[in-house]
């Protein structure tokens, strides 16, 4: 029964995760817990290991040590169940350039065995302002359009947990607002969202909780207010971030 209890406790549970690439120790004991239905922002400088952590959570990479449970399932032993529970938007848009935008989403919907893939595709295209471009080859899209298509693709079906690795990098302000809106709707519908970002205001705007990854560990987690209280002198999250990250160097 323990497994059942932990499943209802947190959507994502990371304990003591370590990961090295040869001699580079990227993650050195990461602990993180994400409550169901919440939005958590993962912040960190370039090369801090955000992508590495997200890849471990989505079963693309194996941790050297530690345990990770997603939606109650162990990523090491229950990879199939984890993959059924998640959707991943990687750091770089992963779309099929030869297929059209619409075909890309239809393919995702069919791979997830959803009913009515065509209708799902049309809805998602509209939601991300791609309805007009849907019939064109994704290879001919601009960077921002590609990114929006990429996110639309991972929203086909509604898995309980979604990972987004720097979802708004390279988007114009309008595109960013569309993605924010989509993330808020997901969370309102009970989906758990973990996203990484370089934009501190994005974390401020969206996240229920913020986690900062630095030197291979999560150095702080908390709500925006809690983080600000850590450094009373700091006015913005940016100040807090720079202070925490800089102070450790």
């Amino acid at each position, binding site marked *: 029964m323990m497994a059942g209890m932990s499943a209802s406790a947190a959507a994502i549970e990371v304990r003591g995760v370590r990961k090295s690439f040869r001699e580079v120790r990227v993650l050195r004991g990461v602990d993180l817990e994400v409550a169901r239905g919440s939005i958590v922002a993962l912040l960190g400088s370039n090369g801090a290991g955000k992508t590495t952590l997200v890849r471990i959570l*989505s079963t*693309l990479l194996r941790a050297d040590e530690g345990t990770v449970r997603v939606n109650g399932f162990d990523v090491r032993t229950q990879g199939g169940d984890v*993959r059924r529970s998640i*959707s*991943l938007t990687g750091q770089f*848009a*992963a779309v099929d350039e*030869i297929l059209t935008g619409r075909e890309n989403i239809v393919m995702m919907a069919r*791979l997830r065995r959803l009913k009515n893939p065509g209708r799902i595709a049309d809805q998602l295209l509209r939601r991300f302002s791609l309805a007009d471009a849907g019939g064109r080859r994704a290879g001919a899209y601009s960077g921002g359009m590609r990114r929006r298509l990429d996110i639309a*693709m991972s929203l086909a079906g509604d898995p309980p947990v979604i990972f987004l690795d720097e979802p708004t990098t390279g988007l114009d302000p309008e595109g960013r607002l569309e993605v924010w809106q989509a993330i808020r709707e997901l969370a309102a519908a009970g989906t758990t969202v973990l996203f990484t970002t370089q934009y501190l205001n994005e974390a401020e705007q969206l996240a229920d909780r913020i986690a900062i990854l630095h030197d291979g560990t999560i150095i702080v987690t908390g709500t925006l207010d809690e983080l600000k209280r850590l450094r009373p002198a700091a006015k913005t999250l940016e100040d807090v971030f720079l202070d925490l990250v800089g102070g450790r160097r």
Partner: protein
Amino acid sequence: MIILLGRSLRHVLRSPDTIVTTAITPIAMMLLFVYVLGGAIRAGDGAYVDYLLPGILIVTVASGISYTAYRLFLDLRSGIFDRFQSMPIARSAVLWAHVLTSVVANLVSLVVVVLVAVVLGFRSSAGVPAWLAVAGILIFFTCALTWLAVLPGLTARTIDGASAFAYPLVFLPFVSSAFVPTGTMPGPVRAFAENQPVTSIVDTLRNLFAGQPAGSGIWTALAWCGGILIVAYVLATVAYRRRI
């Protein structure tokens, strides 16, 4: 997997040049051998094109499979491979879809090459069972070589690296019974030629085309294909695991 197969078949359909380029090298070679070199080559009694075709078909397969490495490499680099791997689908499905696509695309190229050969005067007394055997062997051979192509597709660092491995394969038929009988080759070369996979496959195909019994060479040919398939599959699986 059907869905992923449909996807990569669509890739082939939307770039039909891959089928054309696959077929064009062997067709050019065939023209060269039949019209330029063929007159000087003594290889049995029949038309030289009859002697030549099996080897040309091997060249076709060898040049066709490099597209698998190419497409797989692009999937890895674009990140769509990772996207599939994070979805609730069988993990091997992505690789199998590429392999089956290669088999289908190569079959089309092979048919094109055979048709050109017929135009050049190729005639076969083979019946339906023999043609089916030819198709079976070629499919098996394509499947085995494609798994070999998966390896550079998974491990190459550059796009050129991914497709360059096919060149030696294309030249393997030259040191075999594919274009000239091995009898005239000097000792060591001949020993190599007679004991490498292409010779047994080519000889078997040639017998089948001639309407003769396939001979014991067919078991050598099948053993080579099976051996290549198993080794390549195991290596590809190891290369795949090491990515995680």
